[in-house]
């Protein structure tokens, strides 16, 4: 059996390699698509994330709080921060006008005496607590004003405003704690440490997902490499089903079936050869993300932290693709039919599955349909690894679905194959 399988694999490998044009398409098509689509989508992602948002800052406080906000804004690298307009110092009026003209997406004004106001509040509060007297007076509020370009899309505006709000709250809280520590130390004989609050919890990138900052950044590369990796795996369906149909129309398959060569063995050889092909394609896709993308100005791909989970996904997606290809070939009646149906169905499944456009940007009805596409299962599994930093176990449901899909395809094909003898 093993020897026969080796002979069959040898045959399938040679057939595959000799079909230069087909092989070239198999490799070039997904690799080109990923490069183009990632570059296109990178712009969209960039506006939100990568390129800095042009912003004006007017710091009228110039005390601890104002400086802390300023420092943080610079540090966050989210903003391209300016404190003057054409060399002339800002005023609240010129700032507002510049944002309104659309020259800057954002304007931030830290009011005069902000630090002082907070200090006063804190001192009053602390003294109140320690003297036992009720704190009755409303605290002087510190109002940091944020202006937004009115022409920015409302969704973006809301996201930005929300993020800014949280961001300043964070700073304020941070500052408050320090002030409280200072006040308490003044009246308490035992000095207490600064209560440090983790700074880096709120960022503009919050709108994507909850992520640990120093790990995976959601960007077009992290989204596109898995998507097109899955696409390239499923695109082998075109080659596989074409190959099977040619074999059938050349009479070679019938010849093998008359020989002591069970259908299962014949298919196993295809599975082995095309799995190797799929894994090669996946590796190329990863290498592309690592090395080629940075050369074109895109960020480099960041691997997740689960090689085993990634492998499992690539492997089960390959099996599903091969099963699908075998099923298409089994039910096709002619080579022409296959060469039209296979690529078309793969592209449609890709569209439904969220390969071309991420599923979350689709209308709600389409979002329900995405789960019908096996490519979506593969994609979700890989997103677990590349975007959500999942592990081997978090991709198990998707891997299982893909495996079941493959088994179903192989099973149905085998039954139909044996049934055809009777026709």
């Amino acid at each position, binding site marked *: 059996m093993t020897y026969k399988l080796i002979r069959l694999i040898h045959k399938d490998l040679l057939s595959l390699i000799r079909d230069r044009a087909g092989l070239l398409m198999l490799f070039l098509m997904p690799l080109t698509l990923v490069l183009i689509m990632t570059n296109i989508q990178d712009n969209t992602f960039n506006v939100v994330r990568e390129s800095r948002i042009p912003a004006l800052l007017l710091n009228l406080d110039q005390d601890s709080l104002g400086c802390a906000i300023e420092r943080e804004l610079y540090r966050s690298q989210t903003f391209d921060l300016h404190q003057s307009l054409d060399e002339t110092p800002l005023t609240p009026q010129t700032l507002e006008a510049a944002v309104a003209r659309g020259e800057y997406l954002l304007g931030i004004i830290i009011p005069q005496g902000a630090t002082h106001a907070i200090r006063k509040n804190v001192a009053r509060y602390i003294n109140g607590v320690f003297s036992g007297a009720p704190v009755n007076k409303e605290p002087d509020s510190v109002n940091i004003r944020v202006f937004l370009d009115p022409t920015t899309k409302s969704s973006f505006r809301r996201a930005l405003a929300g993020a800014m709000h949280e961001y300043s709250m964070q700073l304020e809280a941070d500052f408050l704690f320090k002030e409280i520590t200072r006040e308490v130390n003044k009246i308490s004989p035992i000095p207490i440490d600064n209560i440090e609050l983790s700074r880096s919890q709120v960022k503009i990138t919050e709108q994507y997902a909850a992520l640990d900052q120093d790990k995976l950044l959601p960007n077009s590369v992290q989204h596109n490499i898995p998507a097109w990796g899955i696409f390239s795996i499923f695109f082998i369906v075109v080659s596989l089903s074409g190959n099977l149909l040619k074999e059938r129309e*050349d009479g*070679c398959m019938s010849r093998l079936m008359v020989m002591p060569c069970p259908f299962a063995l014949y298919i196993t050889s295809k599975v082995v050869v095309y799995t190797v092909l799929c894994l090669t394609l996946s590796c190329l896709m990863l290498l592309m993300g690592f090395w080629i993308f940075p050369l074109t100005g895109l960020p480099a791909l960041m691997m997740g932290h689960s090689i085993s989970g990634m492998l499992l996904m690539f492997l089960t997606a390959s099996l599903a693709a091969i099963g699908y290809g075998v099923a298409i070939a089994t039910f096709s009646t002619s080579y022409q039919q296959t060469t039209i149906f296979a690529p078309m169905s793969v592209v449609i499944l890709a569209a439904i599955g969220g390969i071309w456009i991420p599923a979350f940007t689709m209308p709600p009805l389409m979002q329900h349909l995405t789960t019908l596409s096996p490519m979506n299962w593969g994609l979700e599994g890989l997103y677990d690894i590349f975007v959500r930093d999942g592990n081997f176990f978090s991709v198990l449901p998707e891997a299982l679905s893909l495996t079941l899909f493959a088994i179903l395809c192989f099973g149905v094909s085998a039954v139909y194959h044996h049934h055809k003898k009777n026709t």
Partner: protein
Amino acid sequence: MNQSTAIEIRDLVKIYRGSEKAAVNHLSLMIPCGEIYGFLGPNGAGKSSTLNILCGLRRQTSGTILIEGRDFREYSREIRQKIGIVPQDIALYPTLTAYENLLLFGGVYGLRRKELDKRIREQLHTFGLTSSKNKQIQYFSGGMKRRINLIAGILHHPCILFLDEPTVGIDVQSKRVILDTLKELNARGTTMVYTSHSMDEAQEICTSLAMIDEGTVIETGSPASLLEKHSECRNLEEIYLKLTGKRLRD
């Protein structure tokens, strides 16, 4: 069961899905061991259909087939190992070389590399194809493809060989070497079932033959006994025309 019967066909019927006419219509035959048994008949007579059922590619609608006394449906594995087929249409991988094709088809019969290599060399030599060993099949001429098509069916030394029009559309030289090889194989004990349109060829190599029309046997016997029986005819072709008529077939 008589050990000297290679193939027994009892009341074989094949009706293809979607057609109301039977391609094989209550066909019964006994083929003894050691024969070159010819199936003669016009196009669409059901020769290929019968062969395809005999070699297990398709399943009959009804009837029984015994190969060396055993039913195909029960002993398919053993029977597949013993029979060889040379299909009507060239069934070879066009992008593989002659050698690679033979390596595959011999290998599927379980022939190990060393022995297989020896046999392939021998056969390529016999059929004058040694120099084309490493050429891809797609660049072969029709006659060369026919020869490889035949070699692929005999590498494993089958007990029973099914040949579906093995000499159709080729030059005289290719036909000669094929017929000579068949005779030689037969002399070494291989039973053959062979279909053809060529009466001359049938007269030359068949030890027995069956004339088939519209899916059923209309006459059987050795070429000599048939000529004796139809004494008014000078050759097989005249007998054939007398029995099948001059009506053109679909």
